[in-house]
Structures are given as structure tokens and as C-alpha cells.
């Protein structure tokens, strides 16, 4: 978390700068099946973030050394388009995107029924076209929808959500300013059906009690988004577009 500077993020009326309540998330819009060349795909707009995901496979896992005898591996790439951020990003993987790709792959491997596809891999390509705080969560949500759109069996649709802390108050779903000047961020990947957590990171400063509240907000939001994800998959039967 940035955490420096004296930026006030809560208004006197108890609302946040953009008018949201503490436990209110940004607007979310989801479409499934929007990339003709892919076997499964999704488009998620969450606030001003836009993530597009393509899924290919299951296919033979190569190079051979990534192959697992008893299950599929998920080959996940999280990538920010050069024009997705305020300062252009140089193409190619960096340390941040490699870490996010790794933990996202591990989270998705926890929900996909990977035992069904031994020795194979499933490619999940997460492209962030526009970034406004919280892209790793948006990517997880979009990846789940794209996997489902590709017909890959899963225990549940994993939902990416985050809460954080600004001006010593726990709030749901940080936007860009809140992310830049806030005190903590707690992104989670939640399986609403089982109540389990498959993705977990956090940085900043949270007391154990604040952690509990932030987690509660995350679960609430996960249920909301879960509904949108299921609806998008239903809608995609009738075709779609980016």
C-alpha cells in the first residue's frame, strides 16, 4: 500500500470519495464467450478495470517437465497490456506479473477438477486492457467464467474480490485512489458454494479484528458477483461480443 501523503479518502457523510458506502462494491459487468478463436472466453468490466480471458485446452502438457501424471496443470499468464496503465508498461513479463500468474494458477488448480485430465495442460490467458486497482481479482473472476465457458469442470466458480482499509476504516473493493493512498488491501479468491478461500494475499496494516471484517465484506461481495457470473454463462448460449 502507498500509505503516504495526507489524502483524505472518507467524506464527512461517511461515504467514500466516489459516493460508495463502506461495504459497496464498484459496478461489475460480465460477458462470456466473446473471443471467436478461443475455446472459452470472458470479458469482465469491474469499475474501470477491463479484463479479457481466453482458455485453450485441455491439451498435451509440454514442455514435458511441467507434466503431472495424475492431473492437469494450469498454465496461467496474467498480462497487463502496454496501454492499460497511466504510464505505459513495457511488454514482457515482470516480477509482479509472474507472481500473480503463479498464485492465480495455484488458486484455479484448486477449483478445476484437474484429476480428470492427467498429463494435460489448460492454458488460461488473462489480459488486462484497462487497470484501475484490483486487476488480479478481476482476472480471477474472468478466468473462472472463461474456464466454465470452455466446458472445463470445476467445483465452483472462483470469485476474485478485495477489501481494504482507508482512513482507519475497513471498506470493500478499493478504487484507484483508495489503493494508492489506503492502508491495507486484502484480495481473496472465494468459492461461494463451499465458503472456502483458494486465493489469499494481503499487504498493509490490519488488526486481526479488521481482518475479520474485511473478510466478511469479501464474502458478501463474492456472492453478488457469483450471480453475475452465472448469468453471463447463461447468456452466452445466445452468442456474445466483446
Amino acid at each position, binding site marked *: 500500500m502507498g500509505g503516504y501523503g495526507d489524502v483524505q479518502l472518507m467524506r464527512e457523510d461517511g461515504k467514500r470519495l466516489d459516493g460508495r458506502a463502506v461495504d459497496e462494491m464498484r459496478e461489475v459487468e460480465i460477458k462470456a464467450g466473446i*473471443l*471467436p*478463436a*478461443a*475455446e472459452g472466453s470472458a470479458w469482465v468490466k469491474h469499475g*474501470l478495470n*477491463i479484463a*479479457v*480471458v*481466453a482458455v*485453450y485446452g485441455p*491439451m498435451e502438457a509440454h514442455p514435458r517437465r511441467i507434466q503431472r501424471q495424475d492431473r492437469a496443470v494450469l498454465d496461467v*499468464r496474467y*498480462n497487463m*497490456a*502496454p*496501454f*492499460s*496503465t*497511466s*504510464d*505505459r508498461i513495457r*511488454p*514482457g513479463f515482470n516480477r509482479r506479473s509472474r507472481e500473480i500468474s503463479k498464485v492465480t494458477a495455484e488458486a484455479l488448480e484448486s477449483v478445476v477438477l484437474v484429476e480428470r485430465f492427467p498429463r494435460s495442460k489448460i*492454458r488460461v*490467458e488473462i*489480459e488486462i*486492457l*484497462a*487497470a*484501475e486497482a484490483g486487476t488480479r481479482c478481476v482476472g480471477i473472476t474472468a478466468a473462472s467464467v472463461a474456464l466454465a465457458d470452455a466446458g472445463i469442470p470445476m467445483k465452483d466458480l472462483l470469485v476474485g474480490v478485495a477489501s481494504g482499509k482507508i482512513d482507519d476504516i475497513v471498506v470493500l473493493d478499493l478504487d484507484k485512489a483508495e489503493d494508492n493512498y489506503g492502508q491495507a488491501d486484502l484480495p481473496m479468491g472465494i468459492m461461494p458454494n463451499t465458503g472456502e478461500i483458494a486465493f489469499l494475499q494481503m499487504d498493509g496494516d490490519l488488526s486481526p479484528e479488521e481482518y475479520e471484517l474485511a473478510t466478511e465484506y469479501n464474502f458478501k461481495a463474492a456472492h453478488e458477483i457469483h450471480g453475475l457470473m452465472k448469468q453471463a454463462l447463461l447468456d452466452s448460449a445466445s452468442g456474445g*461480443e*466483446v
Partner: protein
Amino acid sequence: MAEMVPQLLRQQLAELASQDKRFDGRGRWDSRDIILETDILYNAEGSAKVVLGDTIVYAGVKFDVASPYSDRPTQGSLMTGAELRPVAHRKYDPGPPSPESIELGRVVDRGIRESGCIDMESLCIVPGEKVWRVMLDLHVLSDGGNIFDACATAAIAAMRTAVVPAERFDVGEDFKLDVSSTPIMCSYRRVGGRYVYDACEQEEIGGDERIHITLGDKGHLHSLQKGLRGVLSPAEFTEILAQAGVRCAELRELVHSKEA
């Protein structure tokens, strides 16, 4: 790509060509449907999306302030990148830029650059010290054939709607990027022995060489490129150049129609 040459597909395409037909029923010089949108991405100073059949591409324009080259102290610069990332098709691998993506970026770049539509002098902030650098990035999300034309169209549309973010860099007021003309690329592919316009994915798999022609507002050539294995005769080139003149004008209208 180690794929077997799809002999069956080649035969089918040759047969269709002999009847003057195409794989998807189009006429030889027909385009697939094309949809162009502009100004669609938060954080990009210029952006455009093109959907051309099953092909979907985005172009985004960013700016920063840089030192000019010492031999051109009053000129800004343009940098074009293209990414054929694995999102776009099962056939693309991750890793460093492939020769295909490098060619794509450089051919689109030359069409814009060599048309002279960007007045590099207009991108000077302080002579010899600070100039604007224009960074144009092409991002293919779905490769359904003819990504060159889709990218070139998105590129010029994004450039022509871009706003230089001078305020963010504390160097004056924001202003529209000055793009004085509208260079347009048209690409032709040899399929079943003859050239067709706007090849679809199947025509690319079973086709031969391709020719990319970029024409300016007055119909002058600004960039040519032959790609892939195959040869052509001067007479064949003359034929597709005439077709390109017609189609470029249509696409130029489309681009202009999406400027606010």
C-alpha cells in the same frame, strides 16, 4: 509451426478458386464485416477496437516525455509495438516477440510513419531537451485471419483520436494529436492460385504469400511488404494495387466516421 501442410484444404481452395468462389462465400475482393470503435479504454490516450470477422484487435496510444535524438533536436518520435500473445490463438506461444509479431508491428508502423501524417515537429516541447514520444501498441485478442488490416485500421483510428496528456506531464494544456492524413492498409493473399482480399483463417492456412499495401489520401504508396513463401508478377501487383485504391478509400471513410 510444424503443422503438416493441409493438402486437402489447399485442393478445396483451388477448386473454389477455379469457380471464382471463396471459402466463406465472399467475392474475390469482398471484405468481411468490419466494426470499428474508438476511445474505449480507460488509461489509453487514444484507443480503438476492430472486429473483422473472427478477428478482434485493440490499439492503444500512450505518450511520454523524452529527450530528442541529437540529430533531430526538434522532433518527437513514434514507437510501434505489436503483440501476438497466446490469448489470440491456440497456435501462439508465450515468449519473446516472434518474427511474425515483429513484422506486424514494423509494417503497420511504416505505413503510418512513411505517409508523413505525423508532424514530428509538432511534438517538440523544448528544442533539444524535451519532446513527446508517441507509443502505439497493437494487441490481438482473437486471430481469425488478416490481423494486419485489423491492426492497421485500429492503429490509425487510435492515433487520429488521441489526446496528448500535456497536463499530466506539467507541460501545458492537453491537445489533440495532429494526424494530417489517413494512411490505410489493404492486404491480399494468394489463395487457390489467385489473390483475394481480407483472407479468413482457413484461407490463410491453405494459402500462399501475402501482400500488404498502404495508401495515402492521394492514392500514393507509402509502404509495401510481401510476406511468406511465394512469388508474384508485376501484372498481378498492378491488379491488386487498383483494388486497394478502392478499398482504402472506403476504410478511410470508416475511420473518419469514428472521430468525435
